[in-house]
């Protein structure tokens, strides 16, 4: 060993580094969000920056329309699963008819938004990160800047807006599919106590606030997924390996961010809306 001993890497050092890294990450995301919002407003309200509705439409098709099938499939199954899981437990109390009430509340408030978000983070988030990351590697981002086109305006804004809008629309579909999945399970397996008056009980149980709080959450999830994907993509270093890492990390960070946001918003809605 040489004369300069390396300092031991204490646990606290590592925790500190992680925490700092986390702050940097959130800071970078916030700056990206601020920049995206600024460019959106400049695009909408000033003449000199065109809004590019065609790019937005392209991204909405890529993010939304292409994941529609998967969302329908997954959410129908989720509806079936909850119905089959809840019925025996409720039957002990003679309350199996309440399956539809539970599916309504759980689906509209949380499962519709959150499962759709998880699907979309794998489907759209990963592909956005890979696409932008590849553009970084092949010097396309630098080329955009060199022809005086801002990458945030040109790439990030249409992707963030498209994910936000499509996430909300897909959640509406998801809510309905969960309810439908429960009904299918009731109709085929659970019997008339559950499926007779299924829709009536659900609509009596549900309030408009159940619906819109879910949509607010899904909007937040959409924002998080797209910002994380763009941020990861733009940060890519070191060729194809970097792109692969960005894609993986997008899904990981997105899911963590989605769950964290879900906790925060559930707490807020619990205190201010649902009670």
């Amino acid at each position, binding site marked *: *060993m*040489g004369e300069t001993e390396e300092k031991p890497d204490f646990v606290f050092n590592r925790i500190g580094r992680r925490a700092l890294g986390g702050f940097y990450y959130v800071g970078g995301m916030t700056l990206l969000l601020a920049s995206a919002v600024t460019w959106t407003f400049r695009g909408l309200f000033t003449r000199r920056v*065109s809004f590019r509705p065609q790019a937005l439409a392209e991204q909405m098709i890529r993010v939304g329309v292409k994941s529609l099938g998967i969302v329908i499939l997954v959410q129908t199954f989720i509806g079936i699963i909850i119905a089959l899981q809840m019925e025996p437990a409720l039957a002990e109390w003679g309350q199996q008819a309440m399956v539809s009430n539970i599916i309504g509340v759980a689906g509209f408030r949380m499962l519709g938004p959150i499962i759709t978000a998880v699907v979309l983070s794998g489907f759209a988030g990963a592909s956005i990160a890979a696409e932008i990351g*590849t*553009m970084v590697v*092949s*010097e*396309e981002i*630098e*080329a*955009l*800047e*060199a*022809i*005086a*086109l*801002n990458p945030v305006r040109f790439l990030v804004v249409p992707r963030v807006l498209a994910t936000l809008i499509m996430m909300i629309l897909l959640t509406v579909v998801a809510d309905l599919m969960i309810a439908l999945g429960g009904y299918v399970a009731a109709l085929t397996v659970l019997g008339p106590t559950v499926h007779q008056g299924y829709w009536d009980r659900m609509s009596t149980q549900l309030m408009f606030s159940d619906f819109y709080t879910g949509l607010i959450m899904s909007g937040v999830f959409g924002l998080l997924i797209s910002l994380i994907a763009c941020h990861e993509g733009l940060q890519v270093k070191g060729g194809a390996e970097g792109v692969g890492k960005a894609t993986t990390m997008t899904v990981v960070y997105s899911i963590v961010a989605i769950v964290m946001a879900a906790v925060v918003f559930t707490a807020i809605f619990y205190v201010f809306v649902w009670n």
Partner: protein
Amino acid sequence: MTLQPQSVATNQPEGEQPVIRVRDLVKTFDRRVLDGVNLDVHKGETMVIMGGSGCGKSTLLRHLIASLRPDSGGIELFGQDLIKLDHEQLDNVRRRFGILFQSGALFNSMTVGENVALPLREHTSLDDDTIDIMVRIKLELVGMRHAVHLMPAELSGGMKKRAGLARAIALDPEILFYDEPSAGLDPVTSAQIDQLMMDLAKKLGVTTVVVTHEMDSAFRIADRMAMLDKGRMLKVAPRAEFEAIRDADPTGDFTNDLIRQFLRGDSTGPLTSRRKNSGYEEDILDAAGM
């Protein structure tokens, strides 16, 4: 910061303001990549910046196109200090130059024609028909009119560079930057790209800045040449002076011998002996734990 043009020796006509002026440029990443670089490029000339891998020439180019900001020093394009400009002013400067990246950097989601059309669509108020005509004119200039509907993935390396060049000249730039234009090309294609660069310089009257380590290509196209080494500008001189150094015998002058070794591509000389000897003993002692 004040600029002191007299501190740099240039062999240029008196009185004319350089189009590009770099003063005492310093940039540090994990080590000092640019260490007080000075350079003037004059209107209409072709300047070749050369140097070995990691000498800082790509970093210098990225400063010139405002893609990196220096730690200190000044970069002027068209008399405007890039560091003092806000985003909008910077974009106005960017519209006045074009760059051909090493890989061509075509947007892979668009056809060749759409690539060339993009700057025209975004920065001019021309209608679609006029843009279509302009795109064909630019592609014809680089001999790629037949490829207007092809996707970048369908093109060879040389064709990608040509298409990238067509996009770079879309807005009729006053300066054209080239990053390693011969890299990854066969000798014939490389010579064709050189010819194209010279044609464009002549036809369009643009100022040309080329970063390369391909000496054949450098001597073909350069009016003046600049040699970077370890982040420092060793020499800026007309091509003839570099040719004289290349063809002369070693003089014992370290700088000249180093340049000569680079220009000739010799395997022995000051460049390599410096690389071989530095830190060798320390390294061995360190490995032995002493």
